[in-house]
């Protein structure tokens, strides 16, 4: 019961935070590499399956997902637009959770 109550409180604070970070920034979402990998009609799975387990398989598959070698996009600072009231909301969500626990 305690577990469930704790989980509900945790979900509540996380959902509040998510309202301010609903999805990755546009820079990161642009050309979504994960979706592309999952839906690419030109990808030959049979060939990949044959390579599975071999040395260098991870490198091969990562090159397919991120052909330019950029696995973690660094959003430009200019694309960000948080305001003070947003920061206050998130900050108080955290504090409310940890002071009431």
């Amino acid at each position, binding site marked *: 019961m305690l577990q*469930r109550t704790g*989980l509900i409180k945790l979900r509540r604070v996380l959902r509040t935070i998510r309202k301010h970070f609903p*999805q990755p920034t546009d820079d*990161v979402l642009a050309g979504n590499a994960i*979706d592309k990998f999952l839906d690419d009609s030109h990808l030959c799975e049979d060939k990949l399956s044959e390579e599975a387990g071999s040395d260098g398989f991870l490198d091969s598959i990562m090159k397919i997902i*991120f052909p330019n070698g950029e696995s973690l996009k660094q959003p430009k600072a200019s694309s*960000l637009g948080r305001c003070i009231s947003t920061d206050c909301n998130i900050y108080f969500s955290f504090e409310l959770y*940890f002071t009431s626990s």
Partner: protein
Amino acid sequence: MNYILPQVDSLVHSLLVLRTNYLFALVSTDCSSDPYLEVYCNLYYLLAQSEETSATDKWAGFVITKEGEEFMEHNAKLFKYDLLYNPLRFESWQRLANIYDEVKFLFITFLILNEVENWNGKRTLFSHSLIIHGYSSSLFAFVLCVQEVDLLLNDGSKQINVSGWRKNATLPHRVETSRRRSRRCLLMTSALAKTPVQQVLSGLCWFRRT
């Protein structure tokens, strides 16, 4: 209700890390990159861990509905967002594979319903039919299939019949898309599996998939 509660202590620890990330972002003076990057890196995985992402505990036939499709896509998005920041996180690939794998139930429903139509619905023949259709001849997979068959006899077959399936172009498309995505996620898990447990999980999922 079969939903297993995640370990709240571990989630609270992750939330503390997230708060630290956030506080650092607030005081950051580095203008060259996103100060909230670490928040993004941790938030979606934590959200996915805390939310109920499995559709199997919903009402009968839930995954077949539009609501079920949206539920699955919503959950899949959390893991996909996390993977944009953490493409080497084994757990996210594996959980994403599981989400897409649930649509597999629809496919098996189709096989079962075919057998219902052809063989007049004898339960003992259903599991047999899965083996005939090439699912697997091993005892282990057989047990898994029997469990799934039981689930579907209770749920899926009440929601759609064979002619309904054949007339609906969306469902077979969903199944095919999910199978493809699940296969690719599992390929990634097999590439990332390092510990014996991960290797077993990855191999088991692949075994069940093929």
